[in-house]
């Protein structure tokens, strides 16, 4: 049966087809996971041309590894691990290593989700810690088709500007829709660290959108 991009097939079926040399299955896999892999590569090496090479190397490693895939993880996780290994090697060689220690340092005392100056002080007699400068109302207008395209571009730039560990977690969870457990496994993160990185990344991006709407008000 021919595969189209919209179809979903099980990992077991995919691997079975690949081992049999099914070209449709191969193209399906490349189209389904290629975009995510490229974005992840960019999170590691940050230079587009290098990221493209890492993705290419990953696919070539996948091809030669098909017969060794044991199915103990999902295909997606398997692909990601190959990419992560390639990207780390490459980042070291290019001396463009991002701070992988950042992944471990997620629980270090960190940034506030919202500028503390936006809240009433802790010793306020009536409403300590309540909004002094409440957020503008924009959540409903954000769904407007007219602002949509420009806003997505703003969001994309915001995502690219996040610290790498936050960018990787937000990218996997919110852009690519991975479940938390898979992100933890692929990035070797604890659940708590994964949540901290997700929280910081999302909070920053909310601030980016807030800035966008304030500028357009």
């Amino acid at each position, binding site marked *: 049966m021919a595969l189209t991009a919209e179809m979903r097939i099980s990992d077991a079926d995919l691997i079975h087809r690949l081992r049999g040399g099914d070209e449709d299955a191969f193209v399906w896999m490349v*189209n389904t996971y290629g975009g995510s892999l490229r974005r992840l590569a960019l999170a590691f090496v940050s230079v587009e041309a290098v990221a493209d090479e890492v993705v290419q190397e990953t696919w070539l490693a996948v091809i030669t590894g098909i017969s060794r895939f044991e199915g103990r993880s999902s295909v997606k996780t398997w692909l990601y691990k190959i990419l992560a290994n390639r990207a780390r090697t490459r980042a070291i060689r290019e001396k463009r290593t991002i701070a992988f220690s950042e992944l471990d340092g997620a629980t270090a005392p960190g940034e506030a989700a919202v500028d503390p100056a936006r809240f009433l002080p802790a010793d306020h007699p009536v409403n300590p810690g309540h909004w002094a400068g409440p957020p503008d109302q924009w959540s409903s207008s954000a769904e407007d088709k007219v602002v949509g395209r420009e806003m997505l571009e703003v969001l994309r730039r915001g995502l690219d500007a996040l610290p790498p560990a936050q960018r990787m977690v937000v990218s996997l969870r919110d852009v690519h829709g991975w479940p938390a457990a898979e992100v933890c496994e692929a990035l070797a993160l604890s659940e708590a660290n994964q949540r901290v990185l997700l929280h910081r990344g999302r909070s920053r991006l909310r601030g980016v959108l807030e800035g966008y709407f304030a500028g357009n008000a």
Partner: protein
Amino acid sequence: MSDHTLKEMACQELVEVITDYLEGTLPEVDRMRFEAHLLGCPACHEYLEQMRTLIRLSRGLAARSLDTATVDSLLHAFRDWKDSQTGM
């Protein structure tokens, strides 16, 4: 403990536990304080909606399919592998 249960959640605390809330990992007591606070605070209600909007919009950033030249060159490599497997 009962003091903690009754203590109203401040807006500044809410914005820090909002991801735990959305992930469903906020302890029961705090989830109740969170939801009680939302009922009386339109500003935090809007903040929560903004986070939900952000998450929805982020899905729109998923990269599009690869260009055909890239796919073709990979397909070529796949064919080579296949041929080497069958000894051709």
